[in-house]
């Protein structure tokens, strides 16, 4: 009797843990809340590689740790966590490029925004899609002279 109770409790705990993970609720075509289309994404690293593009000659010496998405109303909301693991200050520029469900540009090109990263610091960059048609995005980053 006691053994069966232990098994039942263990199973319930395992189920609750499994159900509680983000993966359990993920819709097809999404990873960490972000649209991924047919791309195979199994880790946060995969998602960062799929969503980040570096432009210009100067690659910023920062790590893009996390990208998470949600929706506010019918607009996509994106959080990108930038980590400067060096002790020096790093200056970079970023912008989001929004595309619609067919992969076409969904809005005008955003302006480059400067970002100052202190040494050994993290910052979360947040953006809201400019319109409901913007269903996907790329986070573009460039070093600042």
């Amino acid at each position, binding site marked *: 009797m006691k053994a069966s109770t232990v098994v039942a409790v263990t199973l319930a705990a395992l189920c609750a843990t499994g159900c509680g993970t983000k993966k359990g609720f993920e819709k097809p075509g999404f990873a960490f809340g972000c649209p991924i289309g047919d791309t195979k994404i199994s880790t946060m690293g995969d998602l960062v590689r799929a969503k980040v593009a570096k432009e210009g000659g100067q690659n910023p010496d920062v790590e893009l740790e996390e990208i998470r998405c949600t929706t*506010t*109303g*019918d*607009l996509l909301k994106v959080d990108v966590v930038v980590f400067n693991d060096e002790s020096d200050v790093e200056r970079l*520029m970023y*912008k989001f490029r929004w595309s619609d469900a067919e992969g076409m540009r969904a*809005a005008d*090109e*955003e*302006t*480059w*925004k*400067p970002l100052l990263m202190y040494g050994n610091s993290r910052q979360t960059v947040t*953006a*809201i899609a*400019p*319109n*409901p048609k913007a269903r996907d995005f790329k986070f573009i980053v460039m070093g*600042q002279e």
Partner: protein
Amino acid sequence: MTRTSSFHIARIASLLSLAAAVALAGCGGPKTRYGDAGSVETVTNQFGSTDLQMLAEQMTQSMLQAPVIASGNLPIVTTQEVKNKTSEYIDTRAITNRMRSSLQKSGRVRFAVDQAEMQKQLDELNRQQGEQYDQDKSVQQGRMVGAGYRVTGEITSIVKETKNVKDVYYQLFMSLTNIQTGIEEWSETKDIRKTTER
């Protein structure tokens, strides 16, 4: 040396110096090229294009999350003056114009004619009431729609300067107020710091 040959030498010398002057002017003269309108501009630490674009974009993104706008009820909004309380000239209408066009493209907001454009609106409305116009096809008086909300704000700056360092801090405050009730439905501040060292 004959008079003719010295005249030729003088003429060649003047032509050479003219060619050299043209060449020098070509090398050292100003070059004009098209640039990226969205690039980060740091020519001086006065209010610049990057500040304008960034503030308008951030304000628009924040405003899109305001419950009265996110609800999808297509509120009608009018823009009022954004007061410039800084020590420099800033065309604050350029900020509200940029916000207005981004908000309109979002499909979440409609804009009623604002105070600055009202006279033009009335002039056209009245012009169409003239006998020269086919009244069946002219717009009618008394059909304008008033805004339910008004956007207003102010931009301030703090400037600190020493012999070698100039630090400028800008703060833009904007709010969205329900005209009927006077309740402020949304407000946001965005700030920028720029430092120049000699």
